[in-house]
C-alpha cells in the first residue's frame, strides 16, 4: 500500500515537474530525466506454486545538477512494482553522489555504481558493485550502488583510481518462489529416490566496522592502440559461499543450507587492443578467498574480439563479439554448476547484432559451456518507435545435458518470451 502511494507520488512528480525542469534547463543548472519501463515475461511452461510471469512497471527518476565547473550532483530513484512477484517491489535510491573536480583529481562521494573491466557480459575484475540477480538472465542495469569514496588521480596518460567503501552491500538473489530458485523435489540416497526438503539458515551479514572496510586500487593507461589496467581489491565477496548439511526424518531428506559471506583479495588486469579492424579484449583476475573452508585460490579470465563487418547487406553493418571464458583452479577442487562464483568455467560466448533498418535491430546472444554441455540463447528484436520510445521483444532458451548438473540445463523449463516498452524522458 505504501509502495503504491509512493508510486503515485512519483508519477505526479513527472506530470508536475516538466515545467519547472524546462525552466531550469535553459541555464543548464538542473535537469530531470529518467525512464518508464513496462515489462512482461511469460514462461512457456507453467510450474505449480511458482511465479510464472512478470508484469512489472518501473519508473526511474534522475536528477542532475552542475552548479559549477568544480562540482556536480546526481541522484536516481527507482520505483519498481511487479504485479506477479511482490518480492521484487521496491522503492530505492539507486545512486546519489557528489562529484568534485580539480585539475588533477576527481572525487565522487556517495552511493554509486563502480564497474571495472573491458570484456563484455562477464567481468572478473569488477567486484566492488553488487548486482540484483533476482532474475538471473535479466541483469542489465541491475547494479546496486554502494556507499563509497572514489578518487581518480590523473598524471599524464596515467590514471590511478582508489575506492574505499565503509559499508557492505550484498547482491540480491531469487526469492523462494522464483523460477530461478530450483530445488529438486526428490534426491537420491543410496540409489533410492527420496523426498527432499530444503531450508536456508539465516545468513550472518558482515558488520560495518572499520575492519570490514573494502578497498580497491586501479592503475590504467591509454596508448594509441591499447588501453590497459591492473587492479587490486580487498573486501567482502557480495556473493556468499554456501555449504549444506543433510539429516533424515523418516523417508524425507532434509537439506539445510548455510550461506557465509567471506573476504577475498582479487588481483586483476585487463586490456583492449586495436588490431586493424578487430578489437582484441582480455581480462583476468586471481581470487584469493579468506576465512572459508574452500579457500583455494582460483583464476578466471576472458579473452575475445569484436569487429564491425561493414556494408554486409547494402549499408547495413554486422557487429560481432566472441569470447572464451575460463576458470583455472586446483585439480582436486570441484565447484557446483550452480555456484554463482563459478558459473562460467569453460564457456564460449558470442553476440551478433545487425541493423534491419534505421529503426529496427536484431541481435542474438549465445553461450555454450564445454564443461557442462549446456547452452543459453537469447534472440532480441528492438524497434525504435520514436525518439526516446523503444520496444524490445526477446526470448530466453536454455538447455543441455541434465546429467552434467550444470547451470543452464538445470533451468531448461524456464524458456520464456519477454516484451519491454521503454520511454526515456
Amino acid at each position, binding site marked *: 500500500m505504501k509502495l503504491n502511494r509512493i508510486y503515485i507520488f512519483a508519477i505526479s512528480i513527472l506530470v508536475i515537474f516538466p515545467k519547472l525542469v524546462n525552466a531550469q534547463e535553459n541555464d543548464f543548472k538542473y535537469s530531470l530525466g529518467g*525512464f518508464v519501463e513496462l515489462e512482461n515475461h511469460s514462461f512457456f511452461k507453467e510450474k505449480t506454486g511458482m511465479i510464472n510471469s512478470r508484469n512489472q512497471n518501473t519508473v526511474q527518476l534522475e536528477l542532475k545538477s552542475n552548479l559549477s565547473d568544480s562540482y556536480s550532483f546526481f541522484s536516481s530513484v527507482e520505483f519498481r512494482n511487479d504485479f506477479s512477484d511482490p518480492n521484487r517491489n521496491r522503492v530505492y535510491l539507486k545512486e546519489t553522489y557528489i562529484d568534485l573536480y580539480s585539475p588533477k583529481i576527481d572525487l565522487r562521494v556517495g552511493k554509486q555504481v563502480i564497474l571495472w573491466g*573491458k570484456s563484455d557480459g562477464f567481468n572478473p575484475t569488477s567486484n566492488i558493485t553488487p548486482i540484483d540477480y533476482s532474475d538471473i538472465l535479466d541483469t542489465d542495469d541491475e547494479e546496486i550502488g554502494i556507499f563509497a569514496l572514489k578518487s581518480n588521480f*590523473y598524471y599524464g596518460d596515467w590514471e590511478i583510481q582508489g575506492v574505499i567503501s565503509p559499508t557492505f552491500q550484498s547482491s540480491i538473489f531469487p526469492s523462494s518462489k522464483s523460477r530461478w530458485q530450483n530445488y529438486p523435489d526428490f534426491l537420491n540416497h543410496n540409489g533410492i529416490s527420496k523426498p527432499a526438503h530444503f531450508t536456508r539458515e539465516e545468513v550472518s551479514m558482515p558488520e560495518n566496522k572499520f575492519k570490514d572496510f573494502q578497498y580497491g586500487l586501479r592503475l590504467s593507461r591509454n596508448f594509441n*592502440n591499447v588501453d590497459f589496467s591492473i587492479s587490486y581489491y580487498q573486501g567482502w565477496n557480495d556473493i556468499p559461499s554456501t555449504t549444506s548439511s543433510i539429516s533424515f526424518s523418516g523417508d524425507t531428506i532434509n537439506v539445510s543450507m548455510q550461506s557465509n559471506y567471506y573476504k577475498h583479495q582479487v588481483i586483476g588486469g585487463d586490456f583492449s587492443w586495436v588490431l586493424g*579492424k578487430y578489437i582484441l579484449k582480455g581480462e583476468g583476475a586471481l581470487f584469493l578467498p579468506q576465512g572459508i573452508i574452500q579457500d583455494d585460490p582460483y583464476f578466471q579470465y576472458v579473452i575475445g574480439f569484436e569487429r564491425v563487418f*561493414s556494408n554486409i547487406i547494402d*549499408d547495413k553493418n554486422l557487429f560481432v563479439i566472441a569470447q572464451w571464458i575460463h576458470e583455472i583452479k586446483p585439480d582436486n577442487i570441484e565447484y557446483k554448476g550452480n555456484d554463482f562464483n563459478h558459473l562460467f568455467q569453460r564457456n564460449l560466448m558470442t553476440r551478433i547484432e545487425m541493423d534491419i533498418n*534505421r529503426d529496427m535491430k536484431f541481435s542474438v546472444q549465445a553461450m555454450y559451456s564445454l564443461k557442462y554441455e549446456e547452452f543459453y540463447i537469447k534472440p532480441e528484436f528492438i524497434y525504435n518507435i520514436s*525518439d526516446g520510445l*523503444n520496444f524490445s521483444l526477446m526470448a530466453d532458451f536454455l538447455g543441455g545435458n541434465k546429467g552434467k548438473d550444470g547451470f543452464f540445463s538445470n533451468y531448461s523449463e524456464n524458456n520464456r518470451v519477454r516484451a519491454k516498452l521503454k520511454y526515456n524522458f
Partner: protein
Amino acid sequence: MKSLFIALFVALLFFISFFTQSLFAQQPSGIDIMKENDKQFNFKTEESTMTMELINSSGKKRVRSVKRYSKRDANKNTSALIRFLSPADVKGSAYLSIEHSANDESRHLYLPALKKARRISAGEDSDNFMGSDFTYEDLDNIDFDKYSFKLLGSESFNGIDCHKVEVTPIGENEKTSGYSKRIYFIDKKIYVIHKIDFYDRHNSLFKHLILTDFKLVSSPGIYRAYNWTMENLKTKHKTTLTYQNFKVNEDIDESLFSTRSLERSN
C-alpha cells in the same frame, strides 16, 4: 643601348608574368581550388552545437542534438569530442576520436548505461555516421595524396558562380572509398562548398549534399554553412544538419579530449 636591353627585358618579364597570372586566373587547376577550399579548415579549435534530423522516405523524422568540440594540431591531426544532448535515450552518450597520425586514430565511446568509456574500432570510412546519410569519409577533410582532382569547368548553383571539380580516389583509397568520384561546386569568390554530388562505386549518382546559410565565423575569411542537407537519391532518406552556433579558434581546454572528460557525466 644597354638601357634599351634592360627596358626590353623588364617588359618581357612583365609580359610573361601578366600572361601567366591571367592564364592562372582563368584556369586554376582542380587541386589549386581544393587547396583554397582546404584553407577554410585551417582552425586550431572549433566548437559547435547542431540539430540533426533524419527523415525517411515517408517523412518520418528522428531528431538528435549534439555538441561538438574539435582541435587540430600543427600536423593537422584532428581530435573531436561529440556529446549527445537529445533525445533522452541517447542523452549523456559521448564519442571521442583522437587522430595520432594520418592512419592512426583511436576512438572511444561512452554510454551512460555502461558507466565507462569503451574503445571502438575505426570501422570503414564508408560506414554511416550516427545512422545518418553521412559517412565517416564525408566528414573527413580531403587528404590530397589520396585523390586526383580535375577541373570540369564553371557552373552556377543557386545563382552563385562555382568551380566544378571532380575528385577521384586513387591508389589504395580507390579500393576503400565508398565512391567512384565526387563532384564539388566551389564558390569562385570565397572558396566554400555549395554542393557535392556523390557517385557510387558503379559510377551512378546516388547522394547529394547542399550547404546553405553561410556566415563568417572567424577572420580572415573563415565561413561555415549553418544548414546542410544530404539526400540519398536511392533510398529517398534525407539528413539535415542545422547549426545553432560556431566558435572558431577560441580557447578549448586540452583535457577535454581525453577519456576522463568522456566519462564525466555533465
